[in-house]
């Protein structure tokens, strides 16, 4: 009788643990996380739209060593500047013939330029009340080489002051003649603020590859993705798009979410496996505790 009771208790325990784990993991997976440049973030500066387009993400930039440059287009976007090792990994990938699209905060871009030995000066955010979509900070820019139009989210002006020998930096995209540098960041034009066309993207050739640096908060982010997807497809051609998410390792929550997600969304297989592991551990621990008692 006692054995029967113990067995039925164990069944109830397994059911309860399995259901609650499943619900917890499912909710944890599907609930949105607001973190800019995150692959699963659906807000303005997230990368959910890009992630949905069969893109894969990198948990660490060291993985680039195993990536064949001709088969991948790397997208690096960050709020915080990349560390020395990270930048070296990216540049090494470019030198091997890879293509990289780099954008993010002004500090991240400045760090990249400084790492390359290019002296730059930050002049301020760019606003274009005429050539913009929905709001003046979503600025339409013209790509010089391809004569295509891109939509950049919160572009800013970084002026190249000087560069090291062997570094080939060419302006890649300009804002319209109606844009201005909002030096005091008040969102309005103030007398004396420069008005005209400004470079907002640079092409840097390194080795046999190309680094496309955009001085903008968002290029392939959700708010502007639909406008730039054609350009991305043209740029990627047959290559797969790799999104750098190495910075998520600093947050276990973001990292775990990425682990149970794939580019197609939350993976039921991963969730089930994780649930099974948790249930096994719980049942084992319960059995041990029961034996002791």
């Amino acid at each position, binding site marked *: 009788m006692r054995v029967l009771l113990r067995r039925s208790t164990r069944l109830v325990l397994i059911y309860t643990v399995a259901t609650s784990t499943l619900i917890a993991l499912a*909710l944890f997976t*599907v609930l949105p996380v607001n973190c800019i440049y995150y692959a699963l973030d659906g807000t303005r500066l997230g990368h959910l739209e890009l992630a949905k387009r069969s893109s894969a993400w990198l948990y660490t930039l060291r993985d680039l060593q195993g990536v064949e440059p001709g088969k991948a287009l790397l997208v690096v976007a960050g709020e915080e500047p990349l560390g020395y090792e990270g930048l070296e990994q990216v540049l090494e990938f470019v030198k091997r013939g890879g293509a990289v699209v780099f954008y993010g905060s002004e500090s991240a871009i400045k760090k990249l330029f400084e790492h390359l030995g290019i002296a730059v000066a930050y002049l301020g955010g760019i606003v274009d*009340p*005429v050539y913009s979509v*929905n709001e003046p900070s979503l600025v339409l820019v013209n790509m010089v080489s391809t004569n295509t139009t891109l939509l950049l989210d919160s572009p800013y002006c970084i002026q190249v002051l000087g560069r090291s020998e062997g570094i080939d930096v060419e302006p890649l995209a300009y804002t319209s003649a109606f844009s201005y540098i909002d030096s005091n960041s008040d969102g309005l034009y*103030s007398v*004396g603020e420069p*008005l005209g066309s400004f470079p907002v993207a640079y092409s840097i050739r390194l080795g046999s590859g190309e680094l496309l640096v955009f001085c903008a908060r968002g290029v392939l982010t959700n708010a502007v993705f639909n406008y730039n997807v054609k350009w991305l497809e043209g740029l990627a051609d047959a290559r797969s798009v790799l999104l750098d998410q190495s910075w998520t390792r600093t947050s276990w929550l973001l990292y775990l979410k990425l682990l149970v997600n794939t580019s197609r969304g939350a993976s039921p297989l991963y969730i089930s496996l994780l649930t099974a592991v948790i249930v096994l551990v719980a049942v084992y621990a319960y059995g041990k505790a029961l034996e002791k008692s």
Partner: protein
Amino acid sequence: MSKSLATIMLIALVMLFLDVNANAQPSPQPLADCTYLLAVLEKAVSYAVRDVPEGEYIAYTMLKAPVVSELSDLHIKSYSVLLSYYTVAMRGVGNRSDIQRLYELYQGIDIVAEYARKLHSCCKESEAAYAIRTRVELYLQELRSRLEGMLVQSSSNLQPVALHIDDRVYKPGEDMDIRVDVINKTCTPRLAAITYAGIVFDSKEFRCTGLECVAVLKAPPAYAVKDYVKSGVAKMSLVIRVSCPGSDFRVFRFVSIRYEYPQVVVDCPSTATRGDVLNITLYSKSGVLSGVLAVKNATSVSTVANITIGITPTAFMLLVEKLYFSTGLNTIRLCVNATEKTLPYCFEKPVIVKPRHPSIEVKAVPLYMSWDGGAQLLIINNVDRVLSARVYVNGRLATLVELPPLNTTLLHVYRSLFPLALANIVINVEDPLMVYDTYSYTYSFTVVNLALTIAIVIGGLISTTLLQSRERMFTLLLAMSGASKRVRSVAEAIPDVLRSLLKPYILGLGSRIAQLYYKLVSRFTRLPTISETLREHYNTAVLSVIKSMWNRRVLWQLLLLAEKDMYSREKPKPEEAKKLYESIAEEEH
């Protein structure tokens, strides 16, 4: 099983719901930043002046860009003008219809200038934006001159008539003789008109004698153009309509007319005192002028009179009263209307008005001692008219009285309800006829209410006497009044209060010796009750349980020490304690 299925379905639904991602459609935002629009306008105009082709693109783009409704009309018209400059002026004048378009373009420059002014008026940094507006106006002036030249040049080259007019600066209202020689005999000059900013000011038909036609136009008088021109030379368009077989066309010229402001002298003393009569001398050096005389003070502008002035000086007397003048800086303003010869203008003359206070004396003393706590003031009015006084005591209006002329008024201004009070009074003496300025008097004094002071002193003395012997009762009452805020019966509250009140007695009034005594006693018997002295307790409780004489003696000595420590001014000396200790130690040995 069914529960598991339901759970999974719920999760699936949650996932579906969260996966919805709406894509907002782009919508153009109307431009409302006036400073930005002014800067772009400057850029577009400067490109036009410098013949930069990119200017056409800027004008075209801005023409299509949506702006807020208040600016929309002028915005569209202005950029249409700039765009037509590229299409008409840059292309060159090839035929007569181009001349007409060129003329329309010339007239359109004023619209651009108006747009620049409107944008400047709504700029958030108006002063800083003024520089941009000035630059825009200079560019437009340049553009206007260029178009004038083009218009004259093309009109001369292409027309079948030759237009002759004196190339000089005309005066307003002056006759302008216009002579037209017909080159193509099939054409006839019909009408001559003088226009400015699209408005026709005068037009006449030609009278022809052979191939020579003549018309006399009047230069527009100043009153007709007062809203469009400022002092200086204004260039107006002279338009000649010529009829040829199958078509009518126009010939354009520009005539210069000098408009001026009148010369008027406004003279008066630069300072005046309230009640004085201000003599203002007015005369005109530009003929008879009518206008309005007004006084501008710190808060308002008051019209004094409609006047007409001529070459002969006119004296105008104005009483410096409060109706028109405030104390300090005032401005006499004469605004004359436009005449045929002169434009309207306002002339100003500053006048400093000094106040005139009524002769008032206020008599007050710093300390008032009265049985009722009242304080009085004497106000002596030395003016031969009734004045009114508002008395404010401690910031509140206490009374409003009339002060009879050349008389003394006694005012009861304050009554103190405290034995001692400080009062601050402000007396504003005003002249109902507003000849005098308000006289303000401020004073602070002390008021002693003798009756109340004596009553309080007596009451205090009685209370002290009564309560002196009932200190405990008084303490008890005090304790009861503040002991509990809850709704409790007195019967409930008293034991608590008593406990609280008698706590020091129970604990030995803080005497360490008493505490030691209590500690010792508590080992053998009970502690003293509330209504028991130490000696009563000793006699009843201690002696009944302690039979040893030596113990009784030790406790008695300790009691005496405790009493001395608690109640006597002379505290027990250490030698006494030592003596007691030694006696106990000796006994133990």
